[in-house]
């Protein structure tokens, strides 16, 4: 396993993920260009999170291939994938409830430079230097993400919005080449969500990673993403540059239709296309 610099090229081919009798992902193939930011849209239960889980290793696919720069990841543990630069955030964003913000970020630094046992035990100078270097890195992150007031607070005492920011800071510390964000605006107030969009754009610029975002906030996703993937029932309905997908009838039928109505809704209730339930 070699870690190369720069954005990663991700390709998913013929992916099938089954839970018992249920097929969450059903023969999905899609490729993501390095350095782009792609939004993954689709109704609940269409397999978006499962797709992220199979890329980052929380779920083991039934069959298919997930390749990063041509290297098949299927047999790798989540830790191994993280070492290759695959980093993700989780929808619940629980992080580590009992750690302080500072320690949470230190843990992210530890992943790249493991602590070891002998160093701290014998108080070796090298271990002290590593610790100091990590703390400097954390200082920078705390500053640039505006987390100074929360630095010594425990994570479980933060609001969900602040926890998201901590999570993003930890992601930067982990130096992603492929970044998977699972509903970064879930569970936070509208005002916080609006503040998050520029932050995500900055994050993309700073890390230079290939980014995949699963999101329900369509306007934000559209404004942020170079390209879109629309999923339904474990398959890709439409994929391509944002503008093309937005005008793709299949995509509108599967998911965007309802959202566009919602955006366009002004006083009267628009009639729904036949075949769509409430």
């Amino acid at each position, binding site marked *: 396993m070699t870690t190369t610099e720069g954005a990663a090229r991700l390709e998913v081919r013929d992916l099938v993920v089954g839970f018992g009798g249920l097929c969450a992902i059903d023969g999905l193939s899609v490729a993501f260009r390095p350095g782009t930011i792609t939004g993954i849209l689709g109704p609940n239960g269409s397999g978006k999170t499962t797709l992220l889980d199979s890329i*980052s*290793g*929380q779920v083991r696919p039934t069959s298919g291939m997930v390749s990063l720069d041509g290297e098949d990841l299927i047999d790798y*543990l*989540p*830790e191994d994938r*993280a*070492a290759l630069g695959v*980093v*993700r955030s*989780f929808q619940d964003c*629980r*992080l*580590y*409830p*009992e*750690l302080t913000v500072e*320690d*949470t970020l*230190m*843990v*992210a630094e*530890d*992943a*790249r430079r*493991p*602590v070891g*046992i002998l*160093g*701290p*035990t014998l*108080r070796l100078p090298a*271990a*002290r230097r590593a*610790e100091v270097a990590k703390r400097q890195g954390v200082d920078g992150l705390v500053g640039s993400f*505006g987390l100074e*007031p*929360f*630095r*010594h*607070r*425990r994570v*479980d*005492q*933060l*609001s969900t*919005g*602040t926890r998201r920011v901590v999570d993003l800071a*930890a992601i930067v510390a*982990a130096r992603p080449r492929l970044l998977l964000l699972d509903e970064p605006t879930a569970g936070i107030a509208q005002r*916080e969500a609006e503040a998050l969009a520029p932050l995500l754009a900055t994050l993309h610029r700073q890390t230079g990673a290939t980014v995949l975002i699963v999101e329900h906030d369509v306007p934000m996703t559209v404004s942020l993403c170079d390209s879109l993937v629309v999923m339904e029932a474990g398959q890709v309905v439409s994929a391509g540059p944002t503008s093309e997908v937005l005008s793709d009838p299949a995509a509108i039928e599967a998911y965007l239709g309802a959202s566009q109505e919602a955006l366009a809704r002004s006083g009267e209730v628009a009639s729904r296309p036949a075949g769509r339930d409430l």
Partner: protein
Amino acid sequence: MSIPAAVLVQGLILGLSYGLLALGLVLIYRTSRVLNFAHGQIGVVAAVLLAKLVDDFHVDYWPAVVLCLAVGAGAGGATELVLRRLYHRPRLIVMVATIGLEQLLFLITLLPFVSPKHLFAPFPVPIHTGFTVGVERFLPGDTFMLIVAPLTVVAFALFFLRSPYGLAMRAMAENGESARLAGIWVKRTSTLAWMLAGVLSAITAILASPGKANAFSQALGPELLLRALAAALIAAMTSFTVAFVAGVALGLIESVLLWNLHQASTVELVMFGILLVALVVRIRSLRSGPRDEERSTWAFGAAAARIRGDDARERVRRVGLALTGVGVLALPAVLDNSRAFLVSRIFVFALIAVSLTILTGWAGQLSLGHFALVAAGAVVTARLVGHWPVLVILPLAGLAGSAIAVVVGLPALRIRGLYLAVTTLGLALLMQVSVLGTPCPRLPLTNWHVCTGLPDPASTLVHRPSLFGIDLGPQRTMYYFVLAVLALTLLVVRAWRDRGIARDLLAVRDNETTAAAMGIRVMRTKVMAFALSGFIAGLAGVCFALVTQRFQASTFDPAQSILIVTMVIIGGLGSIEGAVLGALYLIGIPAAFGSGTTVQFITSGVGLTLFILFLPGGLAGVLHRVGDAAAGVLRGPLSTTSWWTAAPGAEAEAEG
């Protein structure tokens, strides 16, 4: 080779009690997600009361039984009411609380108006017909068990499957939140389940008590509980049928093995093997259930953190440390030999508690067999002292502790908390019965003897060696030796806490998925926790052997391991100074106020329950508050800029 029918009948009788106990454990686990260590003891209270009523008060048997079953139900319900206060806490804390309640219930059986006058009088049985199989004579109590136990199971099954209450319990077990929305009164149903379990436990104890000479004071020992737990685990803590059948099967297996091998030590080994295999085979099912206990953390609610970044507080801390240091160094001057011995013992237990703090407090893995690791260190010492210098023995014992801890912890790499508690309890028993008791067992299938046990299981004497030409023989010299080991260990453990190791362990404990996704090596981190903790436990074993000098296999009984768990929780789980304070409290108080068993139980059982309920931060929390207050006096009231005092439920944060 044919097995005599009597052996099978014996096994069946044994198995029925395992099965009944397992039913109760599964019932409670399904409805409340708690591994109830007090389960057996609830029944013992009822059984002891029955003997009291029938023997001392001459109440007729059947009315007395009804009364005692009611007491069982009441005790079950009362247990639930106490534990309900903890339902927002992690499941593992609730589990530890049940250990405290178990000891409390044991205390109740010792009360004069509960305990029967004649402890060795035969336990009352309503029938007087025994039977004979082959040459083996079975007592009326056995007949009673064979008749009533199956009837109890049938009645239980009917209740659970047919009655609306049973349906409500099953619904709650599947999904508590949905059950609540569907109109089930969750609290009442939960209480009902605990009362039912109480009745079940009472029946079990009443059936199992006849024929056991001192069943009352013995309580339901860890062996019985362990077998029932094994049966419940084989049933993946969900299926009543499997749990009961597995219990009966375990009884049969045990009986046949005992007949075949004639050695309790080998039987224990095989039973431990069965337990491990059951765990490994059932891992998938055990993981697939609702995962509250895996998601929840050890969070004690109130953080035991002291005020940070405050000069006055820092001064108070330094002064306190310095005074403690001077105190313990000067102490031997005023202590006689026996007192010096007692304080050395406190130091040894502080070492063990620090070791458990790493494993349980930081890594979130509850070990109920930590004393077995200490025993390993003691064996290494007993075998090597006099041949090799102490400075070689110390790391060797540490490595032995590490190795055992890692091996026993292997299943825990894939499943958490709960199950490790069961395997470690098994380890504690195995160590005491099989390993320590057999000086040099022969390896199976070979002719090699490996000397892993105590040289003399009945009484091993360790001669204190000398170190750097100083004879460690005198009590005071020993005091300084143990103090030095403790002080060095504390320095190292503090470095582990402050320089990265602790935060990685906590991260993996709190959220394994996220830690792995961030790139933390989860397996490596867990193995490290076991190895570090085992190493210190091994060191403690050396000190234990050198301080105690004379000990036997039964010195290392499973109750000692429970004592250590109590220690770290009373001290304040996860806190290093808390571990030391816990040892001071639990070993020091009995030493100061008499060391009767009752004092021991009062300091641990009642104390544990009270601490969990009312002082979640433990003694460490108290210490920090005292320190904060002292700093406040020095400096005046805390300025408003230091609002990050990590106070629980800090003010609603301002978004910025």
